[in-house]
């Protein structure tokens, strides 16, 4: 189908989130694809509509109002393809992160091999791994069986066995899965994704097919030292999407209009990060975060590796999960104005009940940004715990999600990201200010040119290039001297003290030559700092030199800590 598509066409993308539904119009402007306009409206898959169609219609109508273009005919149908008079659109795509709670059970052989790969596969999508069973499980078989039943799984991943490896152990684990499938009530039987030893695929599919729908993907662990998750990830996403169709009203109906089937936002987001991973410094990797209301998606990609992780905490309903794993003082320590732990906890729990709410006062907004810092820190810790970061150096970090792109000033976004992720080395920070990454990932399936051209456009904001210095010097001691040469021949020099963060002006889209000289023992990159200039790109916050250390240690005294936080904001130009 895609081969026959014309080269130039307009695309309407709709991202259905658990809180908001966003519509994006892409079209050709002066020989290049651009984001023409976007519109946002509250999602309507919940009460009272229970149908995503209402929000989709509303968001596209808003696009019509903004652009003056007509997308609907007189019967409120999308006009496809576009008409010679410019009305209508050529392609329509949907991504969604509206996913019901899904329990997933992993079956595999060895804990450190296939079970671990199975878990990593499960982490790639919006599910909760509630149990895992392997041959080293010491529980009696009947206890294991009861444990499977107690979890009431929605999905099963069945991994295990290298291709051509032994089958007997796998058959034992298969017996357990089969018994569970047999016992579970017919309409509660989970779908199974088999991604183990290829030689057993047909046999297992045949035996399980009697009870449930079985998908087969290539072995995720074809040999002990090889892990291939991508094909199985596609299958797992498709299985999750089927659950979404069951639970999210109206999605199946509108999917008939789409040029490619609706995609999970996480999967589409990861596709873009994977693409970027091929373009940047091969010694580092691209890190992407999509912070949503219910879930947080973290995607890492280098030239040879890519990892996708989802976490069940976010900044709407997902705050509840964040608070369950966080001491409230880890959030309130980031506040400049004093707020009691009890008040902060109450506000954030209330936010989980009303995820649509907008922070009304500066205090409420500061509390939400503090929670975002903690969320990013928790996600980084979880990524390390899952061994999901092949590199600790990133170029660039791309951030998506309304919590960060709706801030009042760029410095607020910058500090929130830096405090949360605490990157090392030299790292550009890019904001997906419209939240178009998932949609671009879906469009890239049939029009990669559009995705590439929009990625290079002003639809994204370069926040800053950040140079992070890690030194053991005492607070206030000069640790770094920097000289930034501008394209017009002028230059600027700065000295950075331990425990501070400063910015040097360097406009977005402008490149400068940066010379660094360490004044104390310390580290910036794995490479030693030399007199050779480094080419850096500017951003709306300029070039940022961060000498606050890693991890950032906040003073324990409340007064000193608040003064320090104010100082950092002031040094970056915040009033």
């Amino acid at each position, binding site marked *: 189908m895609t081969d026959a598509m014309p080269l130039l066409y307009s695309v309407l993308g709709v991202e259905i989130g658990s809180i908001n539904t966003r519509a994006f119009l892409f079209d050709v402007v002066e020989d290049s694809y651009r984001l023409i306009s976007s519109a946002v409206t509250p999602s309507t898959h919940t009460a*009272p509509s229970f149908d995503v169609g209402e929000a989709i219609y509303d968001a596209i109508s808003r696009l019509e109002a903004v652009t003056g273009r007509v997308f609907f005919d007189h019967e409120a149908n999308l006009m496809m393809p576009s008409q010679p008079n410019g009305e209508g659109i050529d392609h329509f795509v949907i991504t969604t992160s509206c996913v019901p709670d899904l329990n997933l059970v992993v079956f595999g052989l060895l804990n450190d091999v296939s079970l671990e790969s199975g878990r990593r596969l499960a982490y790639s999508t919006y599910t909760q791994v509630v149990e895992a069973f392997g041959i080293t499980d010491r529980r009696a078989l009947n206890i294991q069986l009861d444990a499977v039943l107690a979890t009431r799984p929605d999905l099963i991943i069945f991994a295990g066995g290298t291709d051509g490896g032994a089958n007997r152990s796998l058959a034992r684990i298969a017996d357990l899965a089969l018994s569970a499938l*047999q016992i579970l009530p017919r309409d509660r039987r989970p779908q199974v994704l088999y991604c183990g030893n290829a030689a057993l695929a047909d046999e297992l599919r045949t035996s399980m097919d009697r009870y449930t729908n079985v998908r087969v993907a290539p072995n995720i662990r074809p040999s002990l030292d090889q892990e291939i998750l991508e094909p199985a990830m596609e299958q797992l996403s498709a299985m999750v999407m089927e659950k979404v169709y069951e639970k999210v009203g109206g999605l199946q109906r509108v999917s008939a209009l789409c040029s490619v089937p609706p995609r999970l936002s996480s999967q589409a987001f990861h596709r873009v990060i994977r693409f970027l991973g091929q373009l940047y410094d091969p010694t580092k990797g691209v890190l992407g975060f999509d912070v949503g209301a219910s879930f947080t998606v973290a995607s890492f990609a280098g030239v040879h590796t890519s990892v996708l992780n989802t976490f069940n905490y976010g900044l709407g309903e997902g705050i509840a999960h964040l608070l369950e794993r966080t001491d409230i003082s880890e959030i309130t320590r980031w506040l400049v104005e004093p707020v009691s732990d009890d008040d902060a906890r109450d506000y954030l*729990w209330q936010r989980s009940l009303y995820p649509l709410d*907008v922070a009304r006062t500066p205090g409420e907004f500061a509390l939400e940004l503090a929670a975002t810092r903690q969320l990013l820190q928790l996600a980084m810790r979880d990524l390390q715990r899952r061994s999901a970061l092949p590199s600790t150096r990133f170029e660039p970090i791309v951030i998506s999600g309304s919590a960060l792109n709706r801030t009042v000033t760029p410095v607020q976004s910058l500090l929130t990201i830096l405090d949360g992720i605490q990157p090392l080395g030299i790292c550009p920070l890019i904001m997906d200010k419209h939240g178009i990454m998932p949609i671009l990932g879906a469009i890239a399936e049939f029009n990669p040119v559009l995705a590439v051209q929009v990625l290079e456009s002003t639809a994204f904001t370069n926040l800053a290039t950040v140079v992070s210095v890690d030194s053991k010097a005492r607070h206030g001691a000069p640790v770094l001297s920097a000289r930034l040469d501008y394209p017009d021949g002028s230059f600027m020099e700065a000295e950075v003290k331990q425990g501070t963060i400063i910015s040097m002006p360097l406009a977005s889209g402008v490149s400068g030559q940066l010379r660094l000289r360490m004044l104390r023992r310390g580290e910036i990159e794995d490479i030693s700092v030399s007199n050779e200039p480094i080419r850096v790109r500017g951003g709306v916050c300029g070039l940022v030199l961060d000498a606050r250390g890693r991890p950032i240690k906040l003073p324990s005294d409340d007064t000193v800590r608040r003064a320090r936080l104010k100082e950092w904001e002031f040094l970056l130009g915040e009033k």
Partner: protein
Amino acid sequence: MSSQMTQIYPLTLIQRNRLLPVPGEINVRPGQKVHPSDVVAQATIPSRHYLVDVGRVLGARTVDAAESLIIRKPGETLEKHDIIAETGGLFSHVIRTPGPGRIVSIHNGRVLIEAESEQIEIKAGFAGQVSRVIAERGVSIETSGALVQGVWGNDRIGFGPLTVDENCLDGELTSAGLGITTRGTVILAGVCASEDILSLAKSVGISGLILGSMPAAMIPTVQVLPFPVILLSGFGKMGIDEVSRQVLETNAGREVSINAMRWNRLTGDRPEIYIPLPAEAEPAITDTAYSVGQKVRVHSGAYAGRVGSIEQIMPGLTQLPSGLRSSSARVRFDQRSSDLFPLVNLDIVQLIN
């Protein structure tokens, strides 16, 4: 713009589904009157099993050999110590069941026995009439009465006569509000901020607790209480809003039912309070747009839980004190106080007639 709404009605037609998570049996018929504690549907979910490896225990070398020793068939019910496999011969070795159960399957020389099942019972939850039976899944129950929706609950249901103590309505629930006469009743209070008071409520044996709000720090304690706790406004010390208060206060002494379930946005299910009343009523309106004159309740911040009237809906987007921009409305609380709020921070709590 589509609005958010909390249904608080002194009299409306209440119709709610009571559904099993798995297919099961329906115990009632259409038109039947039900009491809150009546079990209207039930199902069993297998929960504990024995797995007997005949081949290993009796030393059979192949699966076929093992299965030839099994003398039972799938579906058979067994008592404790019943024989399920034997080698035969003069010195026969046997395997007996470790306990009563039912054979689920025989596979690969292993016998799977279901030992226990978990009984799932769905109660009516409120007094009413069965209006519809959904085969194998559950029923719809209907009644006329007062309806008050909440925002959070501890996943319990309960019922009892409503006790309203004026002293507790405007402030915190104290031990004075938990006398011996409150045993078996549902207590209404503005705030509960003490875990000791919850312990006292448990020992007194109340049937339920309706609160305007409570500190979020008490969630772990409340989740394990044996009686339902429902919050009408949320977390904090905002107390009970005036619209809910009015509806509940006027029904003091009447039998109330609490369904303190979690708010599920995907299904639209919310924690609710039902008070059946002997009067005819129309179904509630569940969808309306924000408009001038409507009574709304503020979700959070300094005004959390307060009810006011929409005085003006601002055109376009309005910059808030936080610096963020949002579709907003001016809400008047009384002659002296009014303020701007994002529309999404407001719940419609009373429709314009």
